[in-house]
Every structure is written in structure tokens, then in C-alpha cells.
């Protein structure tokens, strides 16, 4: 390896270190006593006190449950709705399908959180303010999901559909037996992207939830970090780590799958 290469490798490593440093710092602050959060003493004793305190200041367990319910609900609905819609666009030449598809794609630009005021009003009329369903409903028909599945379904050879038809399958049967199984990689990829996005979503959940019983982790974390009398770094770090831990751990364990998913989604 020549000098140029070595330099590049060093640069890449330096950048990687810079990139991971903030998170490492949060770990440092969370596991050391509050006084040391602003001083760097490598031999300082570790402590779980900050986590204990953070746990009592905000109901993280409840927030975690809310978030899990939320992403599961959204994903399940998305899988169903986007499969049906994607199938319609891929295989049915129905009247007006071009315009319909264009209108669907509008949602890629104009996400529900851009229209917070009006969507809040709609939710109030439906009586869904401060419910988890209220957080999820605007996202269940995902333009991105419809788009992905349409592309995927289009690549599936027609012969397979015809073979199934010959055996007496109904249209929905064909969908279920032929298209869905073959699109599994897309579903997996989409699932990871959707879960990551909704796990970390903040503005809309902030607006629509009022109470602990419905707040997801992101909103809980924001409220936890903002008391009037001021912040205590070590405790904030501990709380932040607790909030990001589930997704972070999942990511570390399934790195390859996460990245493949995002890549797949990107190609399409």
C-alpha cells in the first residue's frame, strides 16, 4: 500500500472517529457521575445513578410501549394498503390511473407534518386527538410504499399469474399466492425503512398527543429534556440513550439488513 492510500485510509478512519464521537461522548456522560460530565477523567468510576434518575423523571417504559404499538400499527396498515394499491397500479390499466398515480406521488413531497394545522383539525373532528391511532392514521397510505411495490410487482413475469389463474385462483388469490411471496425482499426493506422513520418521527406526534399514555419516545424525550429550571447533562444523556437504545441495538445487530434495505429503497 503506497503512501497515498495509507493517507486516505487514515483520513477515512479519522472521519469515522469524528462521526461516532458524539455518541461515544453521550455514553461517557451517561455512565459517569454528573460532576464529571463536563470533565474528562478516563479513570473515573462508572455509575448507573443517572439512568435511575432519568427513569423516574419520565415514564420511558410507557413511551417505549407507545412507540412499539405505533410502529407496528403503522407498518401493518401500510403493508396491506400499499400492497393493494401497488397491485392496482402495476397490473390494472384502469381509467385515470396516470392521474391517480401522479396524485399519489404528491405525498412524497407534501408529508402530513407539513399540514399540521389542518390535519390536527381533522383528527379533532374524528375524535382521535391524543390517541395512538391518531398519530398513525395520516401515514398509513404511504406513497413511497405504493411506489416501491408497484415497481416490484411490475417485474414479476405475467406467466406466473396466468399459471395461477389456470388453477382457478381469484384475483386476490393471485395477489396473495404469487405476487406477495415474490416481493418479500422489498417488503423487508420497506419495513425497516418505515420502522426507522416512524420510530424517530417527532413533530406530528408532538402536536397530536397530549398525555403520557400516548406519547412516543421522541416526544417523551423532548419534554424530559426541557424543564424550566435547567438541564442536568448526565441525566439528559442517560435519558437520551435509553430512548435511542432499542433502535440502535437493532441496528447494530442487523447492520447489513438495515443498509441493504435503505439501498434497495434508494435504487427504486
Amino acid at each position: 500500500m503506497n503512501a497515498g492510500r495509507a493517507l486516505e485510509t487514515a483520513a477515512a478512519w479519522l472521519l469515522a472517529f469524528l462521526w461516532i464521537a458524539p455518541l461515544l461522548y453521550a455514553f461517557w456522560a451517561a455512565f459517569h457521575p454528573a460532576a464529571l460530565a463536563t470533565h474528562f477523567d478516563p479513570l473515573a468510576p462508572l455509575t448507573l445513578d443517572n439512568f435511575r434518575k432519568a427513569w423516574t423523571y419520565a415514564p420511558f417504559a410507557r413511551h417505549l410501549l407507545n412507540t412499539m404499538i405505533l410502529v407496528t400499527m403503522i407498518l401493518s396498515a401500510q403493508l396491506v394498503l400499499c400492497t393493494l394499491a401497488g397491485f392496482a397500479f402495476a397490473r390494472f390499466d384502469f381509467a385515470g390511473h396516470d392521474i391517480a398515480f401522479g396524485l399519489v406521488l404528491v405525498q412524497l413531497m407534501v408529508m402530513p407534518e407539513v399540514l399540521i394545522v389542518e390535519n390536527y383539525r381533522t383528527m379533532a373532528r374524528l375524535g382521535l386527538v391524543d390517541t395512538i391511532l391518531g398519530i398513525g392514521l395520516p401515514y398509513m397510505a404511504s406513497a413511497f410504499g405504493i411506489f416501491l411495490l408497484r415497481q416490484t410487482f411490475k417485474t414479476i413475469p405475467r406467466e406466473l399469474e396466468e399459471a395461477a389463474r389456470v388453477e382457478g385462483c381469484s384475483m386476490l388469490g393471485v395477489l396473495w399466492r404469487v405476487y406477495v411471496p415474490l416481493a418479500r425482499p422489498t417488503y423487508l426493506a420497506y419495513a425497516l425503512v418505515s420502522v426507522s422513520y416512524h420510530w424517530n418521527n417527532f413533530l406530528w406526534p408532538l402536536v397530536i398527543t397530549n398525555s403520557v399514555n400516548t406519547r412516543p419516545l421522541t416526544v417523551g424525550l423532548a419534554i424530559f429534556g426541557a424543564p424550566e429550571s435547567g438541564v442536568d447533562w448526565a441525566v439528559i444523556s442517560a435519558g437520551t440513550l435509553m430512548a435511542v437504545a432499542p433502535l440502535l441495538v437493532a441496528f447494530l445487530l442487523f447492520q447489513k439488513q438495515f443498509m441493504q434495505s435503505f439501498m434497495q429503497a434508494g435504487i427504486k
Partner: protein
Amino acid sequence: MRHVYGWLLLLPAAVLLIGFTHYPAAATLLDSLFSSGTVVRPSRFVGVDNYAALADDPIFTQVLWNNFWFALGTIPASIALAMLMAIWVNDRLAARTLVRMAYFTPTILPMIAVANIWLFFYTPQIGLLDQLGALFGAPSHNWLGDPHTVMGCLVAMTIWKEAGFFMIFYLAALQSLPPELEEAAKIEGASRWYFFRRVTFPLLMPTTLFVLVNATINSFKLVDHLFILTKGGPNNASNLLLYYIYQVAFSFFDTSYAATLTVILLLLLATLALVQFQLIEKRVHYR
């Protein structure tokens, strides 16, 4: 019959999409033509008065500029870094998996968590940045409290969060490039920089355009950090359009003015959509 089936399949998704995207957009437009109502003073039709008020609102102008600088600051830098990261990771780099993980991890964190962590870096005197500076004898600086530096700080933090995300798209694109190109270049004795400039970069153009549009839309959507770091201050130096809409709607309860601002935001996004459509469709077919 196909037509009926088609629409039936589409119906559930269509209902939700119309309900939470198209209908609210139209309703917002309508709303912007009325004044805000309270129980004591009910709402009335005011036509384009609200839009006239926009021109008189210094915060609105400030916010538009801020969005512009924010986009200008974050997008080119994150794209450049993302390309660089992708090239490095794609090569046979030592410890490549770890490096890739380090680049991508910030993407997995919610913006709120990122803001919590970075608030600490920027705190004067006791914060990490000032402490590091003190090691080199630099004076303490009020990073988030100084209107000249606050945007820069937010931009740095956003680049940190976004670059890894864009890297993924470039990785995918790089992996789909035929390896013969690189071999041919090596045989002809082209330097790596030359190869990058004349071959890789142009071939990555479709990805770049895609990432560009994505990043621009994101720059309008990304306001979570303001709730933790600056709340738009000091004196609106870091305020962004979507955050201003939130303030007007939920802090001032002025829903009509918020609707007016939202219409502006929608127009900006629509323009971007058109640009994307023109640029990308043409470019992709060009290749």
C-alpha cells in the same frame, strides 16, 4: 371490470391519502382567505389580506432566508461527504464494516436525541467545544446565542446526521457500476482522481440529482432540533418556516396566518417537485 377492480384496490389507500394530503392542502388554501376566529371575535372572509400581512412580517422574510441558507449550508456539504464516504467504504478499506457503521449510525438516531447531545457541545464554557478550545487557548464562545454562529452550528449538526444517509444511495449506485471501467482506466494509466472526475462523478449524476431533491425537501421538514436548541432564536436567527408555522398555530393560536404560511411552504415544495420531474426524468433518459 378491470377498471372497477383497479379502483376498488386503490380505494382504502386513496381515502387516506385524500384525507390527509390533498384535502388538508385545499382546506389550508381556503383557510388562508379568512381571519382567525376566537369565540369573542368570529372569523370573517378577508381575501388576500393575510398574504399582504406576509409582506409586512419581518419574521417571515427572516425565516425564508434562514431556510435558504440552511439548505445551502447543509446540502452540498452532505452530498460531497456522502460521495466521499461511499467511495471509501466501497474500496477495500481496512476495518471497512466499522467505518461504514460509524458513518451511518447518526441516521438511526432521532433528531431530538441528536439535538440533546449537540446542545451540550455548544454550551459555552462547560460544553465540549469550548473545553476543547480551552486546551488550545481559545476563548469561550456563545455558539448558539450568537446570531452569527447559530446557523453554522445547526448546519454542522445536520450534516453530521444526514451525510451517512445519503452515503447509502451512493453506495448502491457505485455497486451497480461495471468494474470493467475501473480496470480499463488502470490499464490506460489514469490516476484515481482523473478516473473519479471523468467517469465516476458523471455516472453518479442521477443519484446526485435524486439525493439533491430529497435533501432539499428534508431541509424544509427538519425542525425538530429547534425545539431543543434555540426555539428559533436568538431573535429568529435560527427560525425556520415549518417551526414558525408551529409557533403561529399553537403558540399564538392564529390558525389563518398559519394557513397562509403553509400555503407558501406548499408552493415551495410544489416548485421543487416540478424541478425534480423535469431534471431527473430528462437526465435519466439521457443515460
